[in-house]
């Protein structure tokens, strides 16, 4: 049955497979990304463009949601600070990015619509598209920590968004996915400055945004559920989304308090390896305070034993002082309390990721 369904769109499916294979080998080649790939999709769009549009309500809701998320993204810059985006901000990127998005969504739509009763085929199509959007050079050549960052900030959002776009194609028109995707790319393509976002911000907010869009379309646009089911879903989704947002904001330190997992016993017996310390941003640092400070992209939590031009620190269980010049701007906060054993998952992850480095 699976084979029979695919055979209906054998040519398009074959095209997708070829495209995915070519992408794996040439995704880092500039001639391919700036010339061959967009040109290929341009020719495909010209021959397969579908003038039929989805319902007006669906378009309107998509535009409203996308605009709200775009504005929230811009406003977040005032909280998180802004970064320059000069290197990415260029019209050539419209050619490079928008055309493949347009083409791939047409292919997804055609394949999914014709295989809508075949879940295995839908899964396979979605996986192929996910593969076609991942940069495999980053996956195979990176240091383990960078690889983890790449998976969180790029790969997981790509997977989540593609599941959403497949769902939207199944229930509506490809233009819905295109609008959402184009709004996602607008900031990178046109804005000379964009809000600061590290790998965690990118990954977590992209995932939360995807769930919100899915929830809105499923329960407010497509109306797939009964009233009872709708109420229950509303509670569950609201709880999950709000919990996730609070967790992410807490991790980012936006409530002035920030957690950190402890990897060593240098402050034993106060707190030990595997504990989680909560520290708070404070201006007035005094001797005997336990401070969290930046050092080479790491955070160290040790006790202040003296203050002169720099802050002199020492781990309670250490024999010697830290040979580090700590300036006021390096200090991230002052220890407030700790939670025992909560940091072990972080330690296991750290051991896993840094194992071969």
């Amino acid at each position, binding site marked *: 049955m699976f084979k029979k369904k695919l055979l209906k769109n054998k040519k398009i499916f074959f095209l997708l497979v070829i495209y995915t294979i070519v992408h794996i080998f040439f995704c880092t080649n500039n001639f391919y990304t700036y010339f061959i790939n967009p040109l290929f999709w341009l020719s495909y769009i010209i021959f397969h463009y579908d003038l039929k549009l989805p319902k007006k309500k669906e378009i309107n809701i998509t535009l409203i949601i996308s605009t709200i998320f775009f504005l929230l993204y811009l406003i977040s810059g005032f909280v998180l600070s802004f970064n320059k985006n000069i290197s990415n901000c260029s019209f050539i990127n419209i050619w490079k990015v928008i055309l493949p998005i347009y083409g791939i969504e047409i292919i997804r739509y055609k394949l999914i619509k014709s295989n809508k009763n075949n879940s295995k085929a839908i899964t396979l199509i979605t996986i192929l598209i996910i593969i076609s959007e991942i940069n495999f050079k980053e996956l195979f050549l990176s240091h383990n920590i960078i690889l*983890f960052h790449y998976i969180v900030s790029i790969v997981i959002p790509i997977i989540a968004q593609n599941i959403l776009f497949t769902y939207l194609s199944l229930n509506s028109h490809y233009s819905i996915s295109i609008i959402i995707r184009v709004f996602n790319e607008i900031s990178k393509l046109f804005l000379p400055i964009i809000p600061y976002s590290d790998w965690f911000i990118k990954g977590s907010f992209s995932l939360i945004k995807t769930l919100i869009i899915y929830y809105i379309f499923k329960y407010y646009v497509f109306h797939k559920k009964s009233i009872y*089911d709708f109420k229950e879903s509303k509670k569950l989704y609201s709880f999950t989304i709000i919990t996730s947002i609070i967790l992410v904001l807490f991790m980012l330190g936006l409530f002035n308090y920030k957690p950190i997992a402890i990897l060593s016993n240098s402050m034993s017996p106060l707190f030990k390896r595997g504990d989680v310390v909560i520290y708070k941003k404070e201006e007035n640092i005094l001797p005997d305070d336990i401070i969290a400070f930046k050092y080479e992209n790491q955070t160290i939590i040790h006790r202040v034993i003296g203050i002169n031009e720099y802050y002199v620190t020492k781990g309670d269980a250490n024999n010697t002082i830290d040979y580090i010049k700590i300036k006021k701007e390096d200090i991230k906060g002052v220890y407030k309390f700790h939670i025992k054993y909560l940091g072990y998952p972080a330690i296991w992850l750290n051991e896993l990721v840094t194992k071969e480095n």
Partner: protein
Amino acid sequence: MRKNRIIILMVFLATILLMAVGYSTFATDFTINGKAEITGEWDVRITNIEATQVPDGCDAGTPTFTKDTINFSAKLNKPGDEIIYEVTIQNLGTIDAELQTIIFTEEIDGIEEINYTTSELKKDLNVGDSTTFNIIVTYVKNTEKVPDVKTKTLTGIIQYVQKETA
């Protein structure tokens, strides 16, 4: 369908939690020296001090040193005499170092006729590097005063710290 919904939300929450754990992991506390979890060994030390030039009638004494201090008493005879001490410092650890301070204190202040200078001390001392510098104790040539004490006793503290990376 209810089961599917629960699975979707559980997978979602698990992914967010994994990201949060990862974020916490890569901003973790670590120790650069101490009893536990040593990621690098700090071992910058003075390994030698010797008098390389001692004029006749002068006495360089027996210079001593610890890991980061030196001590010597230079006894000079007449104006123009110079005793040169050569100090060797080595980075035997696994952490690059840079000079932070070098401070000398005199046991008896105010012997103006006998002064001291030091040659330039190498600022960066990377892992495996060794450096030497000279301390030159001089009896000022054209002095009319003859000091009661012709011995200069100096203690020097040389402190290197972990090199700041750019």
